[in-house]
């Protein structure tokens, strides 16, 4: 892990999927068929553990045999105070600021089982390049997230597409679990994502926060 730099945050990182309308539309009728049965009721969450955390400029070595990874660029909401049972109307008061996250994952079509092998390889959660104070930025629903592969824009999305905008997401998550100061909640990773592989220089960018750069490397021979 010597080629990973340190991220600007220290806490637990929680990710969310199926929190954007295009992903729910893409799942379509599958949401009501086995193994899912019915559309998700609560936020669909996962954890990116400490070994995945990395900063901008990191060289991330992909798992053995992995040709491609998906690039889940999204907003990282950084907590500034312990947050339990937040109210939607005042939830943003618990937020210290925002950063950029690039949730790297082995491609995986299913959202039935927790994606530990897919999402928890070393360096699979670059965060950065900095945390920008909440009040220096506007409504997170107005943010645009761009993904770049070798300098070219591979995806661009507006966070106006969130099913649960950040305050609602914070309220629904902290209904049953406390987020601590320094913890990071990712606002939602889409299902339809660009991919990249060894040798690619990838980046995630949000205007007003900055650009998070990562180089992907293959496993050692």
């Amino acid at each position, binding site marked *: 892990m010597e080629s990973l730099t340190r991220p600007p945050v220290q806490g637990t990182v*929680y990710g969310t*999927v199926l929190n954007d309308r295009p992903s729910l539309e893409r799942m379509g009728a599958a949401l009501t068929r086995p193994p899912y049965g019915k559309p998700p009721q*609560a936020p669909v969450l996962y954890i990116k553990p400490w070994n995945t955390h990395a900063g901008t400029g990191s060289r991330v070595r992909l798992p053995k045999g992995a040709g491609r990874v998906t690039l889940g660029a999204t907003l990282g909401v950084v907590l500034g105070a312990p947050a339990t049972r937040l109210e939607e109307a005042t939830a943003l008061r618990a937020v210290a600021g925002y950063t950029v996250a690039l949730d790297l994952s082995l491609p995986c079509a299913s959202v039935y089982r927790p994606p530990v*092998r897919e999402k*928890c*390889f070393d360096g699979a959660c670059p965060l950065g390049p900095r945390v920008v104070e909440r009040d220096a930025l506007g409504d997170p629903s107005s943010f645009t997230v761009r993904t770049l592969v070798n300098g070219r824009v591979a995806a661009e999305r507006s966070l106006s597409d969130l099913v649960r905008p950040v305050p609602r997401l914070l309220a629904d998550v902290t209904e*049953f*679990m*406390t987020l601590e100061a320094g913890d990071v909640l990712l606002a939602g990773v889409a299902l339809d994502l660009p991919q990249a592989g060894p040798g690619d220089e990838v980046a995630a960018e949000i205007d007003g926060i900055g650009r998070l750069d990562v180089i992907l490397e293959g496993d050692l021979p």
Partner: protein
Amino acid sequence: MKRARVAFEGAIHHVTGHATEQNGGLRLADGRLLGEEEVVWLPPVAPRTVFALGLNYADHARELAFKAPETPLVFLKGPNTIVGHRARTRRPDGVAFMHYECELAVVIGRTARDVPKERAYEVVAGYTVANDYAVRDYLENYYRPNLRVKNRDGCTPLGPWLVDAADVPDPMNLRLRTLVNGRVTQEGHTRDMIFDVPTLIATLSSFMTLGPGDVILTGTPEGLVDVRPGDEVVTEIEGVGRLVNTITAGQQP
């Protein structure tokens, strides 16, 4: 040797004991002897990554009408859910089924990557007992078991002691059981794990780095019953410890 963290008279103490001492009694570093109920027990480790295993006992997989998995079913838990011995755990109001899960918890002692099975025990610091509560009303088929079922505040008691690996000569040969209000409701044996401790360490470390303070909750055997406010739930593992928890009424949700 075994170690615990307790709060007593306004300070946090790291205490040690020996396996031969009666469970519960403890000695502070300055020599004071205290009873189990005189201190507040904290989790014996401040965990980093917490792994939990689903369906890792064949009898439990059958109980839930699942066939045994071919690869370990692993999910992760956050620090918010971990509490110590003699804690109170809330049952949300209005739910129909909340159950305990008695599990052997393996605490990793050093940085570990690509550990072969035959060397897996070298990276273990010790063992403790976990009670991995689940509120099944909230089960959904997205990243199942989802965090609302398994990662609620205060729903994973851990402790009382971290017992040194050297004092648990064969972690795959331990009896487990759970008592609710003194009645045995769950009995099992670690030899019945589908994926044993060395296999779990080898598997996890094959795709990610493990480190000191990471904890693996190794799954639970059959025998799960609903627990209600006021119930005392004791999860115990032979030679590792006896972890007491009391269910209390929660608020909505």
